[in-house]
């Protein structure tokens, strides 16, 4: 009872964000359209490359196309910057009044981001149907799908906190957008969303797997396409959880420091 009453406002925030995002119809349609074109692009690219070169041992063409297509569909969710609101609110100063309201601002931000993400998650369905006109996607057995979902969920949270930290930089310097884009582009490459991290040669390969970005796309995708063997699942998801815990602690500390800073400045 108490719990649901405490929870109600955040559900409303999420619903509002969902409705707000749904009003930008052109955006939603162009997002789906560009995704379909990208699916065509990856199909053309990998088909051409596999036709003229020896295939990597553990990744035949159909698995590579599955990898690239599922990565694109995941990006519909992961490319949504769930905490962009912080940057906007710092810029126009409304963060000060939010801190006075009887709500938890971090949870408010999370609900807003979640609501916006939920709308984009819906675009996966039409995107997938259209993509299937262009490519065939492997579907792994149910246990693998469950591990994939778990790993994707953890990856989503890691990505959310990474975005949060980048947006929180705005508490200290107003012009943080460039820094954020730098991290976004680096993350796109090093997370395995463009090419599988297994393609990186020896030393670079070890390096990219040791970075937190791998937890976002690479781990769930390697589970999905069967490059990772079931014996490794626990270890891989464990590494993801470790990154999530670390990012959680850093985010919490950052938020506390930021809150104090606003109070000291007097808003």
């Amino acid at each position: 009872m108490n719990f649901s009453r405490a929870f109600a406002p955040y559900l409303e925030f999420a619903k509002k964000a969902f409705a707000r995002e749904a009003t930008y119809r052109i955006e939603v349609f162009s997002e789906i359209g560009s995704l379909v074109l990208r699916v065509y692009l990856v199909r053309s690219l990998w088909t051409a490359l596999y036709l003229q070169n020896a295939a990597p041992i553990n990744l035949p063409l159909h698995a590579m196309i599955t990898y690239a297509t599922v990565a694109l569909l995941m990006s519909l969710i992961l490319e949504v910057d769930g905490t962009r609101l912080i940057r906007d609110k710092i810029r126009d100063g409304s963060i000060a009044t939010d801190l006075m309201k009887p709500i938890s601002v971090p949870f408010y931000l999370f609900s807003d981001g979640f609501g916006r993400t939920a709308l984009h998650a819906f675009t996966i369905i039409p995107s997938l149907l259209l993509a299937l006109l262009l490519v065939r996607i492997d579907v792994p057995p149910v246990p693998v799908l469950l591990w994939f979902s778990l790993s994707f969920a953890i990856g989503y949270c890691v990505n959310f906190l990474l975005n949060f930290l980048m947006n929180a930089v705005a508490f200290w310097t107003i012009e943080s957008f460039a820094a954020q884009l730098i991290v976004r582009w680096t993350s796109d490459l090093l997370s395995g969303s463009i090419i599988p991290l297994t393609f990186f040669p020896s030393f670079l390969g070890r390096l990219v797997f040791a970075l937190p970005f791998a937890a976002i796309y690479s781990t769930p995708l390697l589970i999905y396409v069967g490059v990772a063997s079931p014996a490794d699942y626990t270890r891989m998801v464990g590494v993801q959880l470790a990154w999530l815990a670390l990012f959680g602690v850093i985010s919490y500390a950052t938020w506390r420091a930021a809150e104090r800073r606003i109070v000291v400045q007097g808003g």
Partner: protein
Amino acid sequence: MLAAYLQYWRINLLTFLEYRANFVMWALFTVVYHGTALLALVVTMQNFPSMNGWNVREVFFLYSLWMLGQEFHNAVFFNVVNVPDFVREGRFDRFLVRPFDTLFQVLTVPQQLFPDGLILATITFAFATMVTHVTVDALFFVLVPLVAIGGALIDFGISLLVAAASFWFIRVDTIRWVVMSLEQEFTRYPISIYQRGVRIILAFVLPFAFTNYFPATFLLHKSETALNLAPWVGVLTPAIGLLWFGVAYVVWRIGLQHYQGTGS
């Protein structure tokens, strides 16, 4: 008009000096933006050495030629992408009442612009030329700047069409970014990897293949296998750029006639 343009660059560089820390971040972003794309390309082609008969150095050259035109566009014509914002915020109307050409005024709104991307593109292109067997002769020094300008005009034409669309539809920001990123992704590879219909679109409808694929084929002395055209097609880039820009400019003028302001 030239005096006004020089004055614009003076203000640009002066404001740029005011915000040096900010500039460093944006310059770094330009490096990361192209660096990640190139690293992905190099890593991919370590595993797959041939892309329809193009090796990694040649694909690198292809990218760097696109980069040259794109960054030339970003240095000189980039302001045009702000038109949708000007229109939405009602700031566009002031350009209509001043005694200069509207497009010229749009291009000379002072930003903190510094041609760092163009400098980076030139360095990258010089490096790509060194690692490939491109003949560096008098023709090269005449042709490459013209191709860069032609490529920039093709990009400018696209930006101008998107900007003109904002006279009819208010929200075009997403379309702008979608077009820009798709252009970058589709021009990264030799167009022979696509199906015939897509090759024709990229060559003659949205002539992105002229920003890099055709001139690179010519400069690298490769035979053109996507549409079986003669190699000299690659030198047509400046002409195609002018033509494409001309078409876009006509649409822009029609849009200006139509423009009524948002009332904000």
